[in-house]
């Protein structure tokens, strides 16, 4: 359950700037400030929502936390330990505890790997179990995302499945190592509304069952409200508002949050 005394992930004054490579003809480099002095804490066992528009820096934040990007400035802490600069064995150990679910299940799954190979790959990489116990772990993981009976899916390939099923495979792959922390980067933006709800329900069930902490990245406040305990709103690389989901939607204090609420389609006929 959510434990407000235990911080699992903490960002301290994180900044990140991307530079375009100088063009052959025009010598000028362009700078894009993706994140500017961002700090927040995520508590153990909560679903934390990060909401913002495209280009706001929300995906960069997610990638920094799973260490697919390095910050220019600032510190990243896991369970109170500084992990900003870890390398080698420590990094591999870290990757076992932290997983990511990507936006587009059409691109994130290897088309040449069967479902079993895709889902068991993290186990192989991290040398967990043997061929027999791995089968059970994959079964468990597929069951937890509602793909039952799991054995029916073992030898299917991504192209034989719908978008919703593919995203569930991607979730199963992320969950098979029983991570402590998972970053879900717009996991439903490529999916239909009814399938999106299904994916949300799966994530919240997994959260309850395994007590995983989630960072849920989305551009939809309504989705964040449905799934999250707390929400942070990010705009042009800066955190503009953070608080309980209900509080932010009922009493938005920042004008950008209000703009997000107003832009949300509501049945105005």
């Amino acid at each position, binding site marked *: 359950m959510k434990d407000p005394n235990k911080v699992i992930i903490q960002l301290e004054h994180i900044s990140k700037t991307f530079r375009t490579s100088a063009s052959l003809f025009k010598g000028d480099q362009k700078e894009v400030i993706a994140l500017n002095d961002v700090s927040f804490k995520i508590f153990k066992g909560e679903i934390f929502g990060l909401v913002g528009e495209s280009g706001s820096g929300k995906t960069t934040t997610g990638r920094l936390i799973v260490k697919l990007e390095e910050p220019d400035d600032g510190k990243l802490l896991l369970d109170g330990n500084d992990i900003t600069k870890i390398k080698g064995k420590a990094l591999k150990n870290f990757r076992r505890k932290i997983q990511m679910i990507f936006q587009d299940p059409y691109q994130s799954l290897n088309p040449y790997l069967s479902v079993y190979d895709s889902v068991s790959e993290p186990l192989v990489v991290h040398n967990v179990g043997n061929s027999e116990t791995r089968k059970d772990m994959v079964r468990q993981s597929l069951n937890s995302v509602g793909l039952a009976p799991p054995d029916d899916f073992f030898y299917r390939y991504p192209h034989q499945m*719908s978008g919703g099923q593919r995203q569930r495979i991607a979730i199963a792959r992320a969950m098979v190592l029983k991570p402590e922390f998972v970053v879900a980067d717009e996991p439903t933006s490529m999916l239909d*509304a*009814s399938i999106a709800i299904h994916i949300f329900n799966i994530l919240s069930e997994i959260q309850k069952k395994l007590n995983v902490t989630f960072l849920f990245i989305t*551009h939809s406040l309504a989705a964040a409200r449905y799934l999250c305990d707390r929400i942070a709103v990010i705009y042009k690389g800066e955190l503009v508002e953070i608080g309980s989901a209900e509080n932010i939607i009922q009493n938005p204090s920042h004008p950008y949050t209000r703009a997000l609420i107003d832009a949300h*389609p509501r049945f105005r006929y």
Partner: protein
Amino acid sequence: MALLTVKNLSVGYHTRKGFLKSVQGVSFALDQGKSLGLVGESGCGKTTIGMALMGLLPDNASVTDGMILFEDQDLLKMSKKEIRQVRWKKVAMIFQAAMNALNPVHRVSEQISEAILAHDADISEKAAMKQVESLFDLVGIPLDRMRDYPHHYSGGMKQRAIIAMALACHPSLIIADEPTTALDVIVQDQILSAIKDFQNRLKISVIFISHDIAVVADICDNIGIMFAGQLVEYGRIEEVFDAPMHPYTKSLLASYLTLDKDVIQLNSYLGETPDLINPAKGCRFCERCSVAETTCSLMAPEWVEISPTHKALCYQCK
């Protein structure tokens, strides 16, 4: 007098596994200046209808039944040459993947003036460029961005350019296929207002294809809900939203995430994707339906008229 009448349209695709009946017996009519929303999940046939209206069905598709009357002419009976006179000039389309619909190696303004020049032999290049200017103005792209290439544009601006291109030859009908799906809420809101705006000003009819029921509610007069290749409910927006009749429509409305209603745990049971090669004999929604009875799985449902403008394809609505 209806601008467009689609009668009993059925379209299928020849696939390795057999003939996939993508659209079956779809009928609707659209008046000049009105808008219709087609809503349904992926694979329900809504894009196939759009492609059929444009005469752009792929080679492995075939129309097995029905007609598409546009200004009293059957688009399905036209030769390739004749349909070229209609496509873009009278019926235009805003495509789903705005990110990929523009040619990356040509300036945006050139691509749009090219479309104008291709369909109007009498117009000079200069006059065409003038038209592009007024189009950019209409869809809200700053004029100093005219000479940019597509990669200079953000997603929302590319989508606006695609809308400008659809408007370039003054069509009377525009088919918008998921024009905001890849965009975030703020840009989506802007694009929807741009569409509403040109629709009001130019009195163009719009068919709006989407899986997002709230987006359709925002901009359409009529709505058609599709499931597994069939239209299952059709009516005026306010009728369908105030009193949804088909269980599928009800589930779509119930699973919409709002900011004002209380958060409740939503039911999300999903059946298998319906088999369209050998479709079920009875109602196709049966497997997912919460109020289905034995008759539903045995006999195909018939249309039930709730009001002269509102109907549903379901036994339980009687």
